[in-house]
């Protein structure tokens, strides 16, 4: 009889303890790339880069083109989005311009051997989520 009561009390205690863990810890929610607090693997990664000499405004200029992979597989579901590219690109790139998960950044007037880093932020509907920096070295 004592054992039965002890098991009953233990069962109730375990049930209550299990209940205590049912809430959501907001600080633990960091897995969505559209969340500003995202802490998962990088959404943007350097895929390739090329440096070409182009004529811009009649003057020859070395242009660094960086191919960046947008890891859309990290998204919870397929969606349109925007990528805000910071300096030195300073451009808003819609998902329509991302082909097969690759977006291209053009950095004008580069110096051979210099590394150029750009902060990319994933956005949608005017707000932004995950961001990380992608770097490439001009030739």
């Amino acid at each position, binding site marked *: 009889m004592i054992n039965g009561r002890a098991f009953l009390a233990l069962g109730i205690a375990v049930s209550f303890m299990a209940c205590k863990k*049912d*809430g959501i810890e907001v600080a633990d929610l960091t897995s969505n790339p559209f*969340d500003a607090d995202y802490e998962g693997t990088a959404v943007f990664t350097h895929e390739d880069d090329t440096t070409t000499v182009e004529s811009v405004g009649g003057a020859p200029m070395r242009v660094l083109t960086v191919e960046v992979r947008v890891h859309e597989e990290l998204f919870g579901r397929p969606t349109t989005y925007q990528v805000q590219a910071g300096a030195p690109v300073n451009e808003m790139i819609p998902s329509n311009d991302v082909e097969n998960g690759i977006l291209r950044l053009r950095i004008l007037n580069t110096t051979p051997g210099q590394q150029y880093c750009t902060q990319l932020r994933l956005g949608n509907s005017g707000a932004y989520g995950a961001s990380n920096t992608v770097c490439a070295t001009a030739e």
Partner: protein
Amino acid sequence: MNGAMEWSTRGEALMHLRSMKSIALGLALWLAPWIATTAQQTGILRFVVDPGHDFSFIVDKTHRLQQREITLTEGLHHFSVWAPTRSIVDTSVFVVAGHTSDLVMKLPLSSEFVAYRKELSAYQVRKRWTIAAPLIALAGSLTWTGIAWGKYADAKDVLEADRVNYAINVDPAAIAALKSSTIPLHNDELKQARTKLMAATGLSVASAVATYLLAKRTSTWQVPLFEDEQKVKFDGMAWVPDPHGNVFMAGLIINLTR
């Protein structure tokens, strides 16, 4: 001559004596039925008593009987009538010879039985409520536990929906709102539901324990017993044969109030 006259006188006397005998015999024969009936002088008394199935009576403070009618000699007779749970009623009835009379009476409930019934009723009510009250509390607390569990499950489902919503949401502003207000609000609701569930579960456990303990305790309660003092008194009022007809019983009532 004298001898002849004497003979004649004796003959008349004999004749007279014979006629007297005849008259006496005729008178006796004529009065025989009347003498026979008046010598018995009995009447029948039928008992119409409530309760009619198990009453007993004592005739003339001597003979105890249990039957529905009795044949008695003419005259005034005393009866003490009693039945289980009833009071003894004493009455006298004049039995008329050659007639069947009915003695109709309703035996009142004895004061001991009325008190016993009251005590038994109080006992039953007390026992019923002692058992029923924790059962009602248990049923109520189990119902509350069920409702609380339902609300707790609903709150969990809402939070699970928030978790899914977070995982598939592609709107940073909506995600920020989800994290800053929606989920904390739903966390609070879950906490309240959990608190109510714990309280309801605790009450249910307490009610179950109380139900068990009170049921166990009431099982040891003594049921009031009825002691028919009127029976003891009635048994003491007459000689009563046992089922074998030989054993002697008597009762003695001592009035301690005097």
